[in-house]
């Protein structure tokens, strides 16, 4: 049994590599993108605000799987072609950006008005005040809901099989089909659990570090 699992590891690790690259790149891009969406959604300009509302509605209102198919197979019809990995990454960032955006919006709106006023009195311009004073407090407050999304993201990466990318769950399914055994799927489950455990622990530490004043 142990030797069978060891035998599975090379191909599973190959899949894990894809899972982790989709995960890390999506996370790194969707967080700043989410802040942008939150700001757009909060804009005083009615037009900008409704464009972002429409965007959030479309991205959260349709399945991520459908968005992947649309970007990879649909866009080439109108002459825009991305390769497999780029299509997957684009779909994930656009989708997760919308969710992150709403989390950041809640965070930004939870900051008391006095903070802006205080920043102004201290001579901070609006952009500087937002980045140096508001955003750090927002990040502190949104860590728990962001952790939720991040854990969802770890598991959603399995959807990239639809554009032909081999990831962890796919590697498990291949081995499961080949060997007529459920063990490879259990191994894949183990990897996902390790990944989410690492993420949970990482964000917990981050949360603690930012838990000043409490």
């Amino acid at each position: 049994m142990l030797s069978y699992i060891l035998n599975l590891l090379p191909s599973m690790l190959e899949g894990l590599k894809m899972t982790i690259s989709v995960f890390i790149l999506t996370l790194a891009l969707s967080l700043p993108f989410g802040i942008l969406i939150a700001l757009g959604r909060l804009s005083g300009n009615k037009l900008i605000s409704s464009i972002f509302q429409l965007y959030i509605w479309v991205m959260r209102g349709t399945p991520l799987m459908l968005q992947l198919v649309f970007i990879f197979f649909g866009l080439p019809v109108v002459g825009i072609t991305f390769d497999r990995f780029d299509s997957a990454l684009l779909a994930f960032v656009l989708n997760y950006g919308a969710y992150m955006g709403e989390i950041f919006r809640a965070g930004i709106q939870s900051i008391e008005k006095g903070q802006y006023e205080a920043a102004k009195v201290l001579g901070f311009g609006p952009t500087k005040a937002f980045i140096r004073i508001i955003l750090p407090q927002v990040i502190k407050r949104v860590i728990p809901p962001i952790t939720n999304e991040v854990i969802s993201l770890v598991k959603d990466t399995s959807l990239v099989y639809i554009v032909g990318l081999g990831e962890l769950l796919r590697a498990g399914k291949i081995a499961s089909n080949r060997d007529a055994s459920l063990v490879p799927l259990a191994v894949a489950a183990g990897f996902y659990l390790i990944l989410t455990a690492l993420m949970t622990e990482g964000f917990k530490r981050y949360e603690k570090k930012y838990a000043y004043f409490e």
Partner: protein
Amino acid sequence: MNKKINRILITFTMIITILAAFTGCSAKEPAAANTKSTGFAKLQEQGYVVVGLDDTFVPMGFRDAKGEIVGFDVDLAKEVFKRTGLEVKFQPIDWSMKESELNSGNIDMIWNGYTITAERKEKVAFSEPYIASRQVIVTLADSAINAKADLAGKTVATQSASSSLDAINTEPGLAASFEGGEPVLFATNNEALMDMEAGRTDAVVADEIMIRYYITERGQEKYKILDEDFGADEYGIGIRKEDTELLEKVNKTLDEMKADGSSAAISEKWFGENIIK
């Protein structure tokens, strides 16, 4: 306050654009599998052809423990293109997207136990059939089902979107007599067999070549294959309709390989017998 948010918004848009442009460049992989070519001359110029396959289809095309793509169809394709003077690249695809992948030019052919059906013929051009198989009925060894008529009132499972399902649907009267009025659909044949072993399914309809692999893997003594079947089927290679020269080359090479016994040798390696048509 609103004006402020707009100014912040502009700053962030700029940051994001720079970030996106940066990762966009670094994440670019060589777009090797993205051939837009039609026409054999173009393939020759680029020096390779891209075969699309579902890498879970054992034993036609799948990954071994080392992660290498292997299989009967894979060996056959390698030999065909060795003779044609082209390198062959294998691109894993999702099976439900195979015709989209082909027609958008991401792959040049579908070669993976691809059964010839009238519906698929409308979308792709098929090579001459190279393997003949049939849609068999599998039950547990001690099952009371011994003929097609015994399936009435029983739970029958098959693979979703498969040629087996199409074959069952050619006999709507029989399908309607199944428990639930239709077959139960699974993503893979392996899952259908597992469900049968768990006692929830009474019979599985599947392509004989595909299902024999699983029967051997899971223990031959546990199952029986009925004499009656849901008809014959044939495998072909799917090529874009406009790629006529490629199709001719593939057909011609397959004929040569049949004549000189090299496809028989590949068949012996994977199935222990010659099943080349």
